[in-house]
């Protein structure tokens, strides 16, 4: 039974065999940095896509442009702005790490050190950054109207 199936199929494509996927792989931190790099890259691309469209509206009519920009002045979009800064900052810092891994002879040796330090820099920038970006929204929403 197994011999007949082996004859009809190629060496790497035998009966019942499947290239297995699906189980969770608890990979190196380097793998998760790569996953996050892709996600932040795609998010940034979507932002740029929308950004090109809304800026191009100015050529349609300045009024239409103003109307669209007006819809951005909401607490929810403010949160999206914080997320955008976070995504771009991570993508930029990890991009530098990947460049160093590619072109610096000792880059592979220090990849984890570089990863933890870029996360450190990210937190140091994002904590005050988030404060100043959300300050106005929060005070307008909850500040009791000064």
């Amino acid at each position, binding site marked *: 039974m197994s011999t007949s199936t082996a004859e009809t199929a190629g060496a790497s494509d035998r009966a019942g*065999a499947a*290239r297995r*996927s699906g189980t969770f792989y*608890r990979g190196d931190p*380097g793998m998760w940095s790569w996953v996050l790099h892709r996600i932040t890259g795609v998010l940034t691309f979507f932002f740029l896509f929308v950004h090109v469209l809304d800026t191009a509206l100015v050529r349609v009519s300045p009024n239409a442009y103003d109307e669209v920009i007006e819809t951005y002045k909401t607490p929810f979009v403010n949160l999206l702005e914080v997320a955008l800064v976070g995504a771009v900052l991570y993508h930029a810092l990890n991009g530098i790490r990947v460049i160093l891994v590619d072109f610096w002879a000792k*880059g592979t040796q220090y990849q984890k050190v570089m990863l933890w330090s870029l996360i450190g820099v990210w937190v140091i920038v994002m904590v005050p950054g988030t404060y100043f970006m959300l300050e106005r929204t929060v005070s307008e929403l909850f500040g009791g109207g000064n």
Partner: protein
Amino acid sequence: MTAVAENAHDTSQIPAPEGSVTITVKILRFNPELDTEPHWESYDVPALPTDRVLNLLFNIKNYVDGTLAFRRSCAHGICGSDAMQINGINRLACKVLVKDLLAKDGKRTTVTVAPIKGLPTMKDLYVDMEPFFEAYRAVKPYLIAYGNEPTRERIQSQADRERFDDTTKCILCAACTSSCPVYWADGSYFGPAAIVNAHRFIFDSRDEGSEERLDILNDAEGVWRCRTTFNCTDACPRGIQVTKAIQEVKRALLFKRV
């Protein structure tokens, strides 16, 4: 097949030496003649802290279910036969000790064992290594030298030998290649192991085939598919700096410097 409760296996026949603790071994099992999909089965087995995961598998095979299929040869971390995914990462079953897997605070320990990813599973923990060796053969992993053979040995300085020392350690266990997300997604990528073995000859001062091998690895499915996720470096049971070797091959291609 009838649905059997996961812990229905009678593991009482497994000898439990003094000092052993009962741990649960969850194995992703697959029998191509009965199953369409792999499924998890649990075995409660006694284990000594000094046992290796391979001992647990053998106890299950010898005392509980003789149909459990896995590969091993030397069982001492030399031959590279028993690479498998243990607790979510690729390791040799003969090199992982139970004491390093025990749960803290005396909680019940569960060890999950699955076949390595990206290669076709033939049965249980046993995979078809042929695609892996195909990629290995494709990089010409042997000395290429032209001209007259020297009358004595091919002399090499210690510094020149040191240049590729790290990549001579490979035992072709496939732990690195099957830990690579790029290889999971696309099996036509050469994979880390093939590049490591190309590196071993590319940077060998006695070898004259570097150009050929670099040409092969410059292919669309070659070295440029590497995304430096470092899973391979983490998985290598011999401690080879796999990603470093791949990056050196990339730089050799970029700067024409070997």
